[in-house]
């Protein structure tokens, strides 16, 4: 069965790219345009890994991650932050509020897939 991945990003460009990359890699993908919609999708879809942008309207990545970490069945799901923020401080901050990995946009398709595999492997170990 295909692995379920939820991708939350307010920019349509990235939603299109992520969908293409992940579906090409054989995953099942669900997309959401902001944190609020992402949270609803997560409860419904029960993903095995989550990709989330940082700066989004309605609910940003930070609040999304914190909210997800409070949801009982989802609290230990691996989360990768996918953002244009790129300083070491940004990465540290994101790791502090609960993400498992940090990818700077723009990214390579192979990089994204490899990192998803890595966080899922760690989560299952």
């Amino acid at each position: 069965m295909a692995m379920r991945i939820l991708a939350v990003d307010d920019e349509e460009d990235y939603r299109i790219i992520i969908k293409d990359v992940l579906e090409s890699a054989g995953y099942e993908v669900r997309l959401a345009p902001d944190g609020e919609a992402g949270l609803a999708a997560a409860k419904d879809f029960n993903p095995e890994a989550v990709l989330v942008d940082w700066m989004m309207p309605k609910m940003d990545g930070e609040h999304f991650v914190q909210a997800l970490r409070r949801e009982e069945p989802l609290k230990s799901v691996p989360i990768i932050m996918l953002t244009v923020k790129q300083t070491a401080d940004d990465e540290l901050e994101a790791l502090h509020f609960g993400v498992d990995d940090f990818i700077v946009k723009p990214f390579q398709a192979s990089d994204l897939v490899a990192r998803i595999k890595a966080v899922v492997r760690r989560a299952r170990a």
Partner: protein
Amino acid sequence: MSIRLKLSLAIGLLLSSSLLGVGFLLLEMESRNLRQDMAKDERFIVAMVRRAAEDALVQKDDLLLLSYGKFLRQQFPALEYVRITWHGSGKDRTYTVGAATPSPGLESTLLRLDDPVEPGRGVTLDVGINEASMRIRLQENIARTRRNFLRLFGIAVIGALVFADLFARRLSRPLKELSRAAAEIGHGKQGVRLAWKSKDEVGRLVEGFNRMAERLEELDALKKDFVSAVTHELRSPLGAIESFLNLMETKLAGGAPQDPVQFKAYFDRIKQNVRRLSGFINDLLDTAKIERGKMECALKPVKLQGVAADVVQFFEAKAKEQEIAITNRVNPDTGPVQADPERLRQVLVNLVSNALKFTPRGGKIWITTEQYRENGQRFLEVAVQDSGHGISPEDQKRLFQKFAQGKNNTQRIAGSHGTGLGLFIVKAIVEAHGGTISVQSELGKGTRFVFGLKMV
């Protein structure tokens, strides 16, 4: 030398010198008084002896005068001797109180009193006062006064110095604080404020300093906003373009047959991002022009109706997609306005695209005009109105500033990426046309941007 030390020394010196001046004046007056007292004492002794002699003469009591003389000698040590010579009944009798040994400084006063009833009877008095001893006592008195004065002066000077130091410390403390705070701000520390309050120049300086610190932080925040806005607006379309290219490259490298429809869609996405990027760069160039005061518009008669219709058509597809109705309600009979057609189009495009961003599905946007006359000049008031989310009064105030995006709105509206330069440029263009732009808005009800253009 610190201000505190300078002030202390200056105040201390001033107080000490004035104390010294006043002190010497007092000392001089005291010495004069003492000297006068001495002269008075001298005359007083002689007068007393004279009074006693008169009494004795009337009462014919020799002893009275004698005992009084003794009493006076005890009272006034300067009274060296009193020689009393009674005249009458043939022979003179002489009594002497004290020793009449001549010594330097001895001053003798001779007095002759006659009995008014018995002629020939009288008394001669020789009063010897030792002025030298009086003068010595006077000197002693003056010296004692001077010692007392010096002691008091010493205490007063110490007091003055302590007071001066406290005063100087009080005055210089805010200055010290100011220089410390200024140094901190110089090192880039934020939130530095001084709590000093007084109604004098220093109080005003502190107030001004706090205002300056606040303004500096505002400017700093503005600069950060600018940098992050520019970075975001440049990086996100560039990032999207690069990501699409990477994706397409990976797909082509995989060798599998590609879906041309999908590739066409990706090319369109790339094109859109390129347009967004060049739009932003144009906005930046316009902003730079405005900052240099070079926003120039070549005014000529333009029919607004045509420009408005063009703009409405430009947004038609997007509006349909968002289920928003855009209407051009400009009267086709409206006369031409004085405008730069390209810039006028830019103003309308900006206002309508903003309206599209902040108007939910099923909403309305319309462009209207109204003619009015002011000082004999005909104007056309152009309004772009929407039934959207509205702008809070707080956001309305900073709407036309560079990189000032409504805080409430951008958080609520999905995909509302803006450069934060649009309205800044719109305002500059309207002003270059000799007009002004204003906004009326209520949260939840909609927004109306109005600007005036001169008519031909």
